[in-house]
């Protein structure tokens, strides 16, 4: 993976993860587009509708619409329902984590987290190429969060 970018880039609008390239992915998934979604509902949907994303990382605890509600709305959309959603949460209750899974989250990440945890989750969800081998393994020097 060439770049994850600033995970906590601009927290106000949560325009957080830059586009990064994945040189070892198969050609169809050479560029992985990923955003962390947060902030207001209108902003969330603008990102989701206007940008083609391969993965969404969303905070659970957000004003107006929480991450779970956002994911449920995505699952109602013919295109967005195919985008894997990773829930980021400070809340680690088993019941809530189970609810994330039941409603379709690809995975969840509990805050606080390390860059390595993010890398492992991405490897699990998107990091396999046609040979079934992991793709995201470039060390931490590119990570700036």
């Amino acid at each position, binding site marked *: 993976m060439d770049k994850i970018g*600033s995970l*906590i*880039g601009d*927290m*106000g609008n949560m325009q957080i993860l830059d586009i990064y390239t994945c040189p070892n992915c198969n050609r169809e998934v050479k560029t992985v587009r990923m955003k962390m979604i947060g902030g207001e509902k209108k902003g969330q949907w603008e990102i989701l509708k206007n940008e083609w994303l391969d993965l969404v990382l969303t905070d659970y*605890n*957000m*004003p107006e619409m929480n991450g779970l509600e956002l994911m449920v709305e995505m699952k109602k959309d013919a295109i967005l329902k195919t985008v894997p959603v990773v829930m980021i*949460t*400070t*809340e*680690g*209750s*088993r*019941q*809530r984590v189970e609810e994330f899974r039941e409603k379709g989250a690809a995975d969840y990440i*509990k*805050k*606080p*987290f*390390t860059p390595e945890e993010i890398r492992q989750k991405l490897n699990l969800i998107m990091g396999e190429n046609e040979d079934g081998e992991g793709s995201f393994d470039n060390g931490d020097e590119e990570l*700036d*969060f």
Partner: protein
Amino acid sequence: MEKEALITAMKNSISEVLETMFFLPLDFPGTHMWDLSNLKKEDTLVSRLSFTGPFKGYFIFFIPKEPASSLTADFLGKDIESISRDHVTDTVKETLNMLAGSTFSNYDDQAVFNLGIPELIDLDDIRGDDSGEEVLIVINTLDNNLALKMVKT
């Protein structure tokens, strides 16, 4: 609410969050190191987050502005000169969000607590507020005292 269990959960949460996200060395000097009346509102950021669940109440996080700026720069991977006020307040609120969530998962991972949205408040708004049972943890780091308080209402 078991107070001793909560104190342990809060201390573990503080260590997890501040050491994992900010690599801050810290210790817990005790509440005798804390005097709310000595805090100056122009020097202190105060964030509050309400919660509901098996019991309800709110958390308050106190942090002096100077370490808040350093902490924000580290968190965002930016030079301190490029940090804006919004960056700092967002980071302080996000820190409280993590402290609260982590406290509850350390306290009881079977229970479901619902966290509100953290907000920045004025120090004057909480002076004289002794509306419920409370737990105060004083945190010493980088030559500054921070504090996390939970109030059960």
